[in-house]
């Protein structure tokens, strides 16, 4: 039996496949596009590519994320809040705050010693502090998203941006360019803006676990987070897969803990 987690995010679809010993044996990440159902299937097929006995051994699948209900081969669903918390606690058991910076939203989840949720908050209403904010700014600055991390690292004199809203920030950024500020200093300012938006959502525990695509692609953001907060900031392996991995852990629990009967195929 394999344990499959599918995280259909608003921006990316992620799949994680675990063996019985919770080893990650298959994974895939791709754009969610507009047909969530088809994307989930393609991502699963690709993740299962190197696992010839998957169909024969059978699998149990939990889906999560914005499009969790579009995954036809899933047996159960869990929210992305539950899944990110699961992964974070799996790697770093104890009282932690989980911060997930996703493409379209942020989550701040607080767990107690036993991994039970004390509270959670999701940002809403706007892109401030999300991957979408950085994407928008990369377009405005005409620099590829992948280069932002390297640029921010070079900054010697960070430009602080004061606005909350993405549109206001864009105007502010234009103003800074006009003033002759360096792009790397502006990019570092954008990173700081993301962190500020997230940190102000809740009081953080001493140990913070960061997950999500933005963290995966911008390790410098994590370094900045350590510096600003003074907290211990931890990042699980494959941070972008955290939701899918957590869903797979749920799948594992549902079967292994409850010895739940499942039909082999589906």
């Amino acid at each position, binding site marked *: 039996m394999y344990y499959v987690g599918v995280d259909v995010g608003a921006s990316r679809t992620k799949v994680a496949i675990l063996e019985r010993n919770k080893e990650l044996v298959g994974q895939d990440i791709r754009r969610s596009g507009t047909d969530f159902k088809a994307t989930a299937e393609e991502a699963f097929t690709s993740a299962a590519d190197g696992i010839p006995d998957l169909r024969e051994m059978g699998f149990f699948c939990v889906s999560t994320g914005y499009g969790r209900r579009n995954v036809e081969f899933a047996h159960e669903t*869990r*929210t992305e*809040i539950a899944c990110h918390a699961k992964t974070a606690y799996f790697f770093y058991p104890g009282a932690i705050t989980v911060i997930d910076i996703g493409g379209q939203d942020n989550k701040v989840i607080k767990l107690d010693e036993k991994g039970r*949720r004390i509270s*959670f*908050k*999701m940002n809403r*209403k706007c892109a401030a502090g999300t991957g979408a904010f950085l994407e928008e700014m990369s377009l405005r600055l005409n620099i590829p998203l992948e280069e932002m991390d390297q640029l921010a690292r070079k900054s010697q004199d960070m430009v602080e941006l004061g606005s909350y809203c993405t549109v206001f920030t864009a105007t502010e950024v234009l103003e800074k360019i006009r003033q002759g500020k360096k792009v790397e200093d502006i990019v570092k300012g954008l990173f700081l803006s993301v962190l500020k938006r997230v940190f102000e959502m809740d009081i953080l525990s001493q140990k913070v676990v960061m997950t999500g695509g933005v963290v995966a692609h911008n390790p410098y953001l994590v370094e900045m987070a350590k510096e600003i907060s003074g907290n211990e900031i931890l990042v699980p392996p494959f941070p972008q897969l955290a939701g899918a991995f957590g869903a797979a852990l749920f799948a594992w629990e549902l079967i292994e803990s409850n010895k739940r009967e499942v039909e082999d195929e589906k």
Partner: protein
Amino acid sequence: MRVEAKPIEATKLLKKVMSDHFYELDEASRTKSKKIAWCTSVGPAELLRGMGFLVYFPENHGAMLGASRMATELIPYANQLGYSPDICSYLTSDIGSYLAKKTPLQKSYNIEAPPRPDVLVFNTNQCRDVKDWFSFYGREFDVPVIGVFTHRSLGKIQDFHIKDVAEQIKALIPILEEVSGQRFDMDRFKEVVALSKKTSELWRACLETASHIPSPWTFFDATIHMGPAVVGRGTKEANEYYEVLLKELKERAKEGIPGVPEERHRVYWEGMPIWGKLRSLSELFSSLKTCVVASTYCNSWIFDQLDPEEPFESMALAYTELFIVRDEDYKESYIQNMYEFFRFNGIIFHDAKTCPNNSNNRYGMPERLSKRLNIPCLVINGDLNDLRCFSEEQAKTNIEAFVEQLEEV
């Protein structure tokens, strides 16, 4: 397959009570047979009825605009006049409805427009917006806009608060006499206060049946069945209706007929309803086997202090005592009492974009209450009427995650 809840039978009668209310107003408006007063939810409705007015409640129309989802398209008409999309979306959608000449009354009751007012009477106990709202119509119809200015954010209520409000209510009489052409009649007034007290007692009793486990109905049911308490307090029609509803709810409670089949969790709703999403939210909670058993909102039409022997003072006290008028300490103790009575295991705060007055999450209350009661609290963002401020998917994920959290406890 999910089991459906057994429908509440009184709903048929409810429809009749509500349509009679609107037909009576419409007839009076067209034939000028009776004077019409527009009144805010806690305006001095008892006084108005006691002086022979038919009473129309624009907030009820606001809720209808929300529930029919007409609000979102009508709000921009008011925005164009300079009423910001950030202020009360009852106000903006109602003014938008007037400007666009579109009302849910057309489809529901074949009534062209809300009744024309002869006078507009507000109480600022809930917000300033009601006065601004009525002032718009005062200018449009060239009729008097009068009202009561209630003290706000009160902890302990003092005698001088009550005296002041009682005097303000009395001071309305000469203007109302002039508009109605009738003399104020103390006996008639007292009768209405007695009837209104009865409405309040019956409505409270209906809401309290939700303390049964499983609850015989939900907050979503109550938002519909509160219609007569809102538009008809102080009338015998409303009281007759609640006698019927109460009997049915008591029977459901006794027989264990639930509002949410297989109720597993019970939660409290703090804040305004999201009118345009009542059905989908109700279905979501039901699918999660979670019953929203009680709410501050539905409780707002309980006026315990009404006393026909002291009509002015008791009205002043009943209106001032309300949750929305009070300070944070009072509100937290109030919710604690609700917690002890209704035995819920979580609280959902609705942060309504356009109504700060009913959004009690903004000064740290969820965090404090969560500690005090040792239960989780969730804040969801939305609005009473403006669905542009509501992300259904995010709200659903939040609510599902909240129920997951309740499961973990």
